Every structure is written in structure tokens, then in C-alpha cells.
């Protein structure tokens, strides 16, 4: 692991904690070639390292965190999303058959 990436990671996590976030987990998704050439901070990149940070934070810090990430030159593209495991799972009934004969004529009340 390059020392610059380690330093960049440390910077971002410290910035997170400064804004009152509690870091749960840090995952390294590996260094791989980017799917398309990304240009950031007047440079083009073809490969990069992917990292995933789990954290708890108040909702107000999201904006300032995105601002911080956009200013950091070592970060090519930073994103913040809601944690997928907190979303409720809704049961999917599948494709419900719709009676199309009822939809053929409009049931709107027309002014006589």
C-alpha cells in the first residue's frame, strides 16, 4: 500500500471524525483499472484504488464532507450514500396482472 494513499485515507477519516462521524469500518475494494478515464484536478486517471468507509454521522455533515472530498487532490471521485442495510426490505409481489378491459374506456365524468 503506497504511503500517499494511506495518508489520504487517514486525512479523510480524520476529516470525518472532525465533523462528528463515528467510523465503523474501512474496506479496501482493491486497486483496479477504472471503467472509463476520469479527469479530476487537471489530471486524467486510468486506474485507482477503491475504498469503502462505513460511518454513522448526522445528516448535516454530508454536504460539508462532499465539499471536503471535492477539494482533496488525492481523491478522484468521492461519493456518500445511505447505508443499504438500514433500508427496509419490502416484499415484492412480482408482476400483478392488470385487467386491461377496464382501462380501455376512460371513466372520467364528462360535462354534458
Amino acid at each position, binding site marked *: 500500500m*503506497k504511503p*500517499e*494513499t494511506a495518508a*489520504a*485515507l487517514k486525512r*479523510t477519516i480524520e476529516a470525518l471524525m472532525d465533523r462528528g462521524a463515528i467510523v*465503523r469500518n474501512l474496506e479496501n*475494494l*482493491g*486497486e*483496479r*483499472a*477504472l*471503467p*472509463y478515464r*476520469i479527469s479530476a484536478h487537471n489530471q486524467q*486517471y486510468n*486506474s*485507482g*484504488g*477503491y*475504498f*469503502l*468507509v*462505513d*460511518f*454513522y*454521522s*448526522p*445528516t*448535516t*455533515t*454530508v454536504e460539508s*464532507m462532499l465539499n471536503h*472530498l471535492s477539494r482533496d487532490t*488525492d*481523491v*478522484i*471521485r*468521492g*461519493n*456518500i*450514500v*445511505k*447505508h*443499504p*442495510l*438500514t*433500508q427496509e*426490505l*419490502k*416484499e*415484492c*409481489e*412480482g*408482476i*400483478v396482472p392488470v385487467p386491461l378491459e377496464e382501462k380501455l374506456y376512460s371513466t372520467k365524468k364528462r360535462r354534458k
Partner: protein
Amino acid sequence: MGTTAAMVTVCGGLGRKKVTHLVTAAISPTHPRTHTVLWRRGFSQYKQISNYKKVQLLAQFVSPFTGGIYGRYITGLCVKKQKEITKAIKRAQIMGFMPVTHKDPAYLKDPKVCNSRYREQLLSCYHR
């Protein structure tokens, strides 16, 4: 406590590492024109959360030539799942997990889940 959030940062680096996922898919034709798609990735269809990292699964619903997302009449999904898949694909593309203008060549040989020959199938009744 506020909302939990997951964040991805991409830093400059070298080297390649492909992440592969195991995907199995099954198509059960119920009606000659429509088919419901159940995809299994170790668990049932309605447990598909946090899709945006599962690029192999998402790439099955994308055209290999243009990289465009297939419509509901081609994929055969219900409205809710189609929306979820679309959102996940867009998210993966913007975050740098999935290519936009084409399908990742490593996933070209995957089992075909979508009815990508829809138009030909419609017109086949007129061919002699």
C-alpha cells in the same frame, strides 16, 4: 443518532484487481409475450439491496453494444425492481464501478437474462 452512510473514495494508484461475483439467473416463461425474471445470487429476488457494487449482476441488464439499460419490456421485471436496477446501474456508473458506453468485456459471456431479441421476436410472425 443520524443516518448511517457508506462512502467510497478513489485515490491515485497502480495495478489491477478484478472483483468477480457469482451470478445465477433463471427465466420462467409464463406468458408468450412476457416473462418474469427471478435472479438468484444466493438469496431470493426481493433481498437485492446494495446492488451498486454487484457489477456482474447489473451488467446483465445492459446492452453489450451501446451500454444502454434495457427497458422493462426487454428485461421483463416488475416496475419496482426495474426502478431499483436502473438506480443501481446509474449509481455504479457514476461512482466508477461500471462502464457507461459499453458492457464490461469480462461479463460478455454471462447467461442471457434479458430478451434482447424482442423486436425480432415481434417481427418474426411476419417473416416467411
